[in-house]
């Protein structure tokens, strides 16, 4: 093992788990197919399908996006001591809410409609998750049970809504109406075209300004600390400078982006489904990291999750934090569902048979990432790539694509039980008190 980075057990343990899972998976393929060649053929197909075939990488990323959002949701819950198994249901409700909001307004420009629809998805998921949160806070009903039950309610409710009140009367298939163009999440291919509309350019400029402002707030004080000249340091530290950076970035984006993207844009394949939700997912993981580790809200959530008695001692409200943790978790999951409708589904609508299974994989992803937002980006990509590469693997090697589930299950096993990996590689347990993967607390006496 080289370098300090890889000497952290939070880094090398998941890596070892991945390697071990693939090796064991290979053994299974070898045994079942009877030939060692098949193993290499299969993994080669998996890799090619996931990365190198035409649109391979972007399809992997398309699957990565909901994984990121859902596992962020689960991670927020975990940190607050809540095992939100219900992300799948919240994903559904977010999707329905977004489909409804997206289709019920027509002719509204994206600058208004898109944020509204995103919000609808988030709120839908948040409400769905807040119900088990409320039950837990008030009655002590364990969220593992209630969120699973809420999943089934969500599935059936969605079916009812799609085939009843929200059904598109003009479509042959049972599905919701196509959402208005203003509510669509743009595919990357369509960005240059979209930007020709000044209102859309304004929307992008506002987002760029916001990002610029946040980055300036982060970077300028650090620059200021290195300045020797006091006047300049004060200037860099001023709110004016930070706002200035944001405004300038926004203005530049507004003025230059439409023309620039016209001149040159890397996404030229009109069948490429990769969409701007990728940026939303990246922003969400930075946001979750910031919320959990840099704010008082995250401090409270983590305290309640790690030691509710100490949280009470410190004057925190357990009830409030359970509700809040569940709501944030559900909002992220709801946004995942929203993005599937607004950005991915071919019909830009919610069809009746809308089964994802993303939510359950996401539990494995956040465990693999140990609830760390950066880790979640990487693990989500791993799962997205496996999900996407599986088809080509089956095609080239004849190995069933469900072997992916086996790989993921092995991975989960090794991640959840580090002693197995340690034993396999004869590693010593880390010195400190290990951050135990407290998945959930007991059934009784919650706060």
């Amino acid at each position: 093992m080289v370098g300090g980075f890889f000497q952290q057990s939070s880094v090398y343990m998941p890596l070892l788990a991945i390697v071990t899972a693939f090796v064991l998976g290979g053994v299974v393929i070898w045994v079942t197919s009877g030939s060692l060649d098949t193993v290499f053929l299969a993994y080669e197909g998996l890799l090619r399908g996931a990365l190198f075939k035409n649109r391979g990488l972007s399809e992997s990323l398309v699957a990565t996006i909901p994984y990121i959002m859902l596992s962020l949701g689960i991670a927020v819950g975990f940190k607050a001591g809540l095992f939100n198994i219900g992300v799948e249901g919240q994903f559904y409700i977010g999707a329905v809410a977004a489909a409804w909001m997206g289709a019920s307004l027509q002719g509204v420009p994206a600058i208004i409609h898109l944020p509204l629809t995103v919000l609808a998805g988030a709120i839908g998921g948040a409400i769905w998750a807040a119900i088990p949160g409320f039950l837990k806070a008030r009655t002590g009903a364990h969220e593992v049970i209630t969120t699973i039950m809420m999943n089934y309610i969500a599935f059936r409710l969605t079916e009812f809504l799609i085939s009843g009140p929200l059904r598109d009367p003009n479509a042959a298939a049972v599905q919701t109406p196509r959402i208005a163009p203003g509510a669509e999440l743009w595919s990357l291919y369509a960005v240059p075209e979209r930007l020709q509309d000044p209102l859309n350019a304004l929307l992008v400029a506002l987002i760029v300004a916001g990002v610029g402002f946040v980055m300036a707030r982060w970077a300028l004080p650090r620059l200021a600390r290195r300045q020797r000249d006091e006047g300049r340091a004060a200037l860099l530290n001023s709110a004016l400078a930070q706002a200035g950076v944001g405004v300038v970035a926004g203005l530049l984006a507004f003025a230059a982006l439409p023309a620039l993207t016209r001149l040159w844009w890397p996404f030229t394949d009109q069948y490429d489904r990769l969409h701007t939700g990728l940026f939303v997912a990246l922003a969400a993981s930075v946001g979750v990291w910031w919320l959990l580790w840099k704010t008082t809200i995250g401090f409270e959530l983590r305290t309640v999750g790690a030691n509710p008695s100490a949280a009470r001692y410190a004057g925190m409200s357990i009830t409030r934090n359970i509700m809040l943790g569940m709501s944030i978790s559900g909002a992220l999951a709801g946004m995942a569902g929203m993005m599937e409708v607004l950005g991915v589904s071919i019909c830009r609508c919610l069809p009746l048979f809308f089964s994802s299974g993303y939510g359950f994989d996401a539990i494995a992803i956040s465990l693999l990432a140990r609830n760390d937002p950066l880790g979640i980006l990487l693990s989500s990509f791993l799962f997205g790539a496996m999900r996407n590469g599986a088809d080509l693997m089956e095609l080239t090697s004849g190995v069933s694509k469900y072997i992916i589930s086996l790989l993921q299950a092995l991975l989960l096993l090794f991640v959840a039980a580090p002693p197995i990996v340690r034993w396999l590689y004869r590693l010593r347990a880390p010195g400190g008190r290990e951050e135990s993967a407290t998945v959930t607390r007991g059934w009784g006496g919650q706060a």
Partner: protein
Amino acid sequence: MTPALQAIGITRRFPGVLANDRVDFELERGQIHALLGENGAGKSTLMNILYGLCQPDSGEIRVNGRPVKIASPHDAIAQGIGMVHQHFMLAPPLTVAENIMLGQELKAGPTRVLGGLAVLDRRTASRRIRELSHQYGLDVDPDACVKDLPVGAQQRVEIVKALYSAADILILDEPTAVLTPQEADELFVIMRGLAKQGKSIVFITHKLREVFAVSDRISVMRAGQMVGSLAPAEATREKLAEMMVGRKVILAIDKAPAHPRQPLLEVEALRVADDRQHMSVDGVSFHVRAGEILGVAGVQGNGQTELAEALTGLRKAVSGHIRMGGRDVTRATTRHLIESGVAHVPEDRQKHGLVLSFSVRDNLVLCAYYKPPCARGIALQFPIIEEHARNLVRLFDVRTPGTATPVGSLSGGNQQKVIVARELSRLLSHQADPAGPPPILIASQPTRGLDVGSIEFIHRQLIQARDQGAAVLLISAELDEIMTLSDRIAVMYKGRILDTLDAATATREHLGLLMAGVLRGDDAGEHAQPAQQITHGDVKAS
């Protein structure tokens, strides 16, 4: 004779600390061997290594002269080593019997095998536990739920658990930290009995009185090294203290007479129920004035815990009144009380006082994280939090590799110092602000598990806080601590305050009798009224 247990050249390094540095240790058969050392000296680490909870980087362990490898507690138990940990290792939702059987379910004895399935035989286990507790005078109820038991009783469960596994070598890591002096004395009788039967015992403590009371041999550690080993006859308190700290320690503490002013904390006819709806605080009235320390003496489990919880908003009062700085706060939330000036050193440090997985610096702002200067809006201000932590770590001499170290990896005494540092610093910041909230400190067992040097330091801090006008309610099972620090002493027995004495004239014997409930307040001579009315009268008089 070969020693029962021998450690040779044990070395163990943790990130940033050398916890054990070529430590040699020898335990003779039938010996009670006291192990002393400052907080963080490496005592628990050495014991954890002997019990297989932690692996040494190098060194050798011999049991009865044979080199052995102890890779896990399982191996240790197989070698006849049992351990009672500094922090409880019990599963709170399970019963006492289940906890004791835990990990030993499949050993011969209380399991029956039914068609290939091992069945837990709770009845036999309960019986054996009753026998053991009878035999050694350790009062435990096998069928009680551990989470309902007070700390003292949980400690007894731990000891019974070690005895239950039929260990020949017993490691007791600060077993008396949570016991009252009477309970400790009972434990010593048990330990003597065990030693007579040929069992060997390692006994870690910070209390020099106990060392002389029970040990056959004394070893002292300092900063990861074994400083020396001597017989009790060669030792004096001063010598031991000096070996531990590396310099002379002043064991006595002098304090100026108190100048109490207006009452800051007033409690009137307070009744508080415990989890089982039993009135554990049953009509208590008292007051604490600015600039004085009121000690609450009493055998643990007489309502002190519930009293402290009621005063800090963690438990709702059934009836009665609590006033702080003249305002009624009976129904106030914990957050409100924190804001209105109450600092609280909780009795159970790992349950209430700390978040073990959080860093030292985060734990130091556990009650202040949400307001300036620690936070601006919702954004935590890390440079300020870090500076705050550095200051307190330095001031309170918390032995830690850094402020980012998880508090759970500090030694027990240093964990306690983190809590005391946080709460005293809040108190001081209140005092610094004349328009601020009334400074009130509720300190439950503030020096539990601290070494002599640290106790001395914390005591000075408490007296200093008093002299600067804080009202201090000191709840302690240590009669010595109560007597050195308090200006007045209230004795609690069965949820009531039997009497409140002037500390200058109170004697150990008198207090002891009151604590045992033998003497009632009205027998005390100086007061002719029943206990309750006396304290009532006190409130009105002031």
